[in-house]
């Protein structure tokens, strides 16, 4: 399973970033290999359409699920079309690592 998590810094121990389209970093976790990779969010510096740019990036990386604090209407539309699960951090998760752990244990709520 490939997860993408919006993050403040390029490391798994980083605090989560509540924003999706304009988060600085997108952390990718591959649960098969246990490997983390950090990606600069291509949406962060856009003057408009940040959510779509970030979503396109995540979709191109064949994600199965994406975890953030919230999703804008454009990003959400793209993920729905791409059949990618949108999960919310909720109140207990504070780091990117934790978010992946909670997601794999199916403890995160879905964004609707």
């Amino acid at each position, binding site marked *: 399973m490939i997860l993408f998590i919006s993050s403040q810094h390029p490391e798994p121990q980083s605090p989560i970033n509540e924003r999706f389209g304009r988060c600085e970093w997108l952390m990718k976790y591959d649960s098969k290999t246990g490997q983390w990779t950090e990606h600069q969010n291509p949406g962060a510096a856009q003057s408009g*359409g*940040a959510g779509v740019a970030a979503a396109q990036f995540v979709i191109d990386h064949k994600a199965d699920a994406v975890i953030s604090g919230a999703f804008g209407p454009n990003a959400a539309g*793209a993920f729905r079309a791409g059949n990618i699960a949108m999960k919310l951090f909720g109140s207990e998760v504070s780091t990117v690592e934790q978010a992946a752990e909670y997601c794999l244990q199916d403890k995160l709520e879905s964004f609707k």
Partner: protein
Amino acid sequence: MRIAVTSGKGGTGKTTVATSLALSLAGEYDVAFIDCDVEAPNAHIFLQPILTEQQDAVILIPKIDAKVCTLCGKCVEVCQFHALAKIGSSILTFPQLCHGCGSCTWNCPVGAITEVPNPIGVLESGTTPEGIPFSHGVLKISEPMATPIIRQLKRKALSPDDTLTILDSPPGASCSVVETLRGMDFALLVTEPTPFGLHDLKQITGILEEFNIPAGVVINRDGIGDNQTDDFLARQNIPVLMRIPFSLEIAAGLSAGTPLIKIDPALRQDFLNVYAQAAQIVAAAKGGK
């Protein structure tokens, strides 16, 4: 001659000045009025035009023929506004992000894209009781982009000759203001003598420098704030053409929808002077070019 009334800061009195300038000039000149503040048009409240014409303002957005599309992704790649995304076996369009530039259509190698009109607002026009031709645009609620409708409004309402036209600009110093200022002969800046007014005024004077548009200033609510605005204008060599006092009577009248020169008819002469000075500045600038 085309005069844009603009400010930087919102609520400094752009519409107050623009409408009373037009009303003051109406008796002596052929003057037209365009309200370019399409997100919150309000000049009609003071000018009371009878609106007789209405047409949709549209932008052309891409429509993709899935049977022809090869999913090459070229359209997504060339879109600067992320109005297209390639997801699985389809291209998704986001009409509210589209600026209608046509790059996707132009670059599609297989001709799978046609452009269809997407209405984003309306353009309305008519005449005021004084005979001033009046036009404004109204952006549809939930539509985020003001620039295309301002462009279409100006294309439709600006006469190709040198008719004296007053344009009421949107507030701020972003795209919609830049679009309004494009092609103007003169900018009448309305400010209030406060640090907030000055901060935003500086942004506008920066834009005007880029455009090489001469400017003059109306200081509204004169008597509040401090001297920083006057000092700045003196340093920049931008003339103050008029001062409107801070007065409860004026505020009450404007709140009731009464044009400034009907609240204080003596100000009509000041507005005529503003225009005379503006015309002089424009003539000097054109002669110098």
